[in-house]
């Protein structure tokens, strides 16, 4: 099975403020691949570099070394013009549904913008917008409204529709449900899965929440301090993790049931004590 996206040994550094300050290495040699139609879940805590990895794939982060190949073609370090040509293949859904939609534009023009940028005629674009709104479960009259008329979940549906407008092959989803309420979150996740099954799009699905990633991902990668520490099938990584950090992460998430959480709490204490023993020097250093 050939990969759709192959990331090899990727290093991303951000310059630090101050004269001759050493740059901050957000990614320290990350390798990952995503197959067509697959969801790769990317879990990690704040500052682990998971968002940076997504931005690097989108061409929004400065790549220092390493390679990102899409469909066999190198896409890191493309010029703005070449990058624009790639926009029909790689799209994005951001975390914050409030700041990712321009407040002064109607939903219709937000959705038709990527279409008209590629020279789709206005009437064709209008038809496609209606189709997209229908795909994400919004009423067709939504096109005339502005983002502020919609709730968080609805705004995220609009952002999904915008990402789908050009029929991409890969969508980078950066914490797309973490700003949403529990019930809305479940519905939006199901929408993601439904769209994938219908169109065969692949997702790089970034989240800090193991249960969300477990729900949508075929495979899961765990990031810690700018490195990927564990990759594997969703069930294996999210239920029987091997790496000490993933184990801690897994144990730290409280189970939404009082008695089972009591058990989990005891297990977590035991795990942390076990990881503190000198034999586990690697994880102790990571702590």
């Amino acid at each position: 099975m050939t990969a759709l996206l192959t990331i090899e040994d990727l290093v991303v550094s951000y310059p630090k403020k101050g004269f001759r300050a050493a740059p901050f290495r957000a990614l320290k040699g990350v390798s990952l691949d995503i197959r067509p139609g697959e969801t790769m879940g990317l879990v990690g805590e704040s500052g682990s570099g998971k968002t940076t990895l997504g931005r690097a794939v989108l061409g929004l982060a400065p790549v220092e070394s390493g390679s990102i190949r899409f469909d066999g073609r190198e896409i890191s370090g493309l010029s703005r013009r070449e990058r624009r040509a790639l926009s029909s293949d790689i799209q994005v859904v951001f975390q914050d549904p409030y700041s990712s939609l321009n407040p002064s534009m109607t939903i219709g023009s937000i959705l038709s913008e990527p279409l008209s940028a590629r020279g789709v005629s206005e009437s064709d674009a209008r038809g496609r917008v209606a189709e997209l709104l229908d795909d994400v479960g919004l009423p067709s009259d939504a096109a005339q409204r502005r983002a502020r008329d919609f709730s968080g979940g609805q705004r995220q549906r609009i952002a999904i529709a915008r990402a789908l407008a050009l029929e991409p092959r890969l969508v980078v989803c950066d914490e797309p449900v973490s700003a949403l309420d529990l019930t809305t979150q479940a519905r939006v996740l199901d929408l993601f899965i439904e769209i994938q099954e219908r169109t065969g799009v692949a997702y790089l699905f970034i989240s800090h929440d193991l249960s969300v990633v477990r729900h949508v991902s075929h495979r899961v990668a765990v990031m810690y301090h700018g490195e990927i520490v564990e990759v594997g099938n969703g069930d294996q990584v999210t239920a029987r993790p091997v790496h000490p950090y993933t184990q801690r992460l897994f144990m730290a998430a409280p189970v939404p049931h009082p008695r089972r959480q009591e058990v989990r709490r005891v297990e977590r204490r035991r795990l942390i004590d076990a990881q503190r023993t000198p034999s586990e020097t690697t994880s102790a250093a990571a702590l």
Partner: protein
Amino acid sequence: MTEYAAAPVVAPTLARQSLFRRLLRNPVAVAALAFLAVVAVVAVVGRWIAPVDPTLSSLQLVVADPSAAHPLGGDSAGRDVLSRLLSATQISIAGALLALVVALLVGVVGGLIAGYYGGLLDTVSSWLTAIVMALPAIVVLLAARAALGPSIWVSMAIFGVLLSPAFFRLVHVSVRAVRDELYVDAARVAGLSDARIIGRHILGVVRAPIIIQSAVLLGIAIAVQSGLEFLGLGDQAVPTWGGMLNDGFAQIYRAPVLMLWPSLAIGLTSMALVLVANAARDELERSAPRPRARRRPAAVSDTRADRPATIVHPDDSRALVTDPDVLLRVRDLVVAYDREGGGSTQVVKGVDLDVRSGEVHGLIGESGSGKTQTAFAILGLLSSGGHIEAGSIEFAGDRLDEAGEGSYARVRGRRIAYVPQEPMSNLDPSFTIGSQLVEPLRVVLGLSRGEARSRALALLERVGIPDPAHAFAAYPHEISGGMAQRVLIAGAVSCDPELVIADEPTTALDVTVQAEVLDLLRDLQRERGMAVLIVTHNFGVVADLCDRVSVMQSGRIVESGPVDAIFDHPEHEYTCSLLGAILEDGDARKPLESHKEITR
């Protein structure tokens, strides 16, 4: 989570009113705009409606008094003042407009490009702007006049360049702010060209401030231009307001009225421009369109009988262990916020809540359910416009809802403590952690400086901060979010409260840190036997910590009971739907099968 106004349904589209339409409702702006319209018309047609050639001299007219043929009389050279005033308008306004257009071109284009692309271009243009701003405009204009001759157009074009930093800085700042917005990133990913992004997403943001700035600068340009002409540095061949002022000033003892007309023209035009700019700014600052006041008579709370009943589960063995004394008793609480334009919106619509001594009570709900507002009402910390409309809050036998600020001060911090959601924004960045912990200990418990310090250090150690002395001397920005939350918890328990109200205390934290903070809260609660009211949207947190749970939905508690009963036998439809939406229990997605792989 503290937002109460998030409308879950599609609200009726508010017609977006243009700035101009909104200005028309402001009487001062209308008067100023009307005057400017007259000036504009005169500027266009003035030359043709002038009764006499403005440059024609006549000996009879030298400093002549007003007459039927010459309503404003004649000037020192015997020219008709009215005709000169009418034609001067065109040249004065055109000169000012030239300065404005040059300033706009240089400033706005430069600001957009420098702000959007950043880097070296940005640095260089910011330096140039600073240099231009440091130049004294009048001196530059005098030098230009000496070198290039007395042309109003040349001097106004140069003045335009001198004005351009005003636009440059305005546009630059706005573009820098917008450039990092996610919707600009989204547009880049969507394959839009830079020109298109600047035109559609960025220019729209700076358009209104540019219009306002333009009005102000146009007034300045008119004033400076008139000043130059008044000094006699302008082109004497063409009539201008400043030139007329110069002439009138020379004749001030013979015909003082000659100064009046150009002064009025300059003064009123500048004033009108500034007034329009002010009114436009006021309208824009009223950011959202004014909500239409609803007719519905506000604030008649439902009577108890009208309200859907709360499902209350009986106590089980775990819940009975806790002290049966009710520490906090909330009855029928209604919290409302004033709406702009009259009326109020209820965000908490009749809540009954009991927190017993030594129990951990969870208040769970989605955003907009009113859970945070309930907690703030108990703390007496509703933000401005919010008030308790009905009901009672009783804490250890005292009515808190009727208490004034004075009696609240005796309760808050001493007997009821608060742990906030955002640890970082609840520590003052300009004081050390130590001083923020010591201060309440000294004020509330009356400890000496030394005692307070050793107690604060003991607390920091208790909440699991590795090096208490180091953290004591640190400023908030030097510690992590998890540490900051530990510090706030230390502060909350420092005065031995009977009740701690924690508003989403772990929402801003990473899961591994959350687990540690939950452990800490649980241990402290057991150790000190305090009651905890924890507001959260996370069922994992509830399961981990709580003895009793109340489920809130749109301002009401729909179900309440011991934690096991709520998780095992939820009865209310809403509780069931919340529990059903939990993903933890679900199966993981299967790995992608190769035969199902979609070929495109």
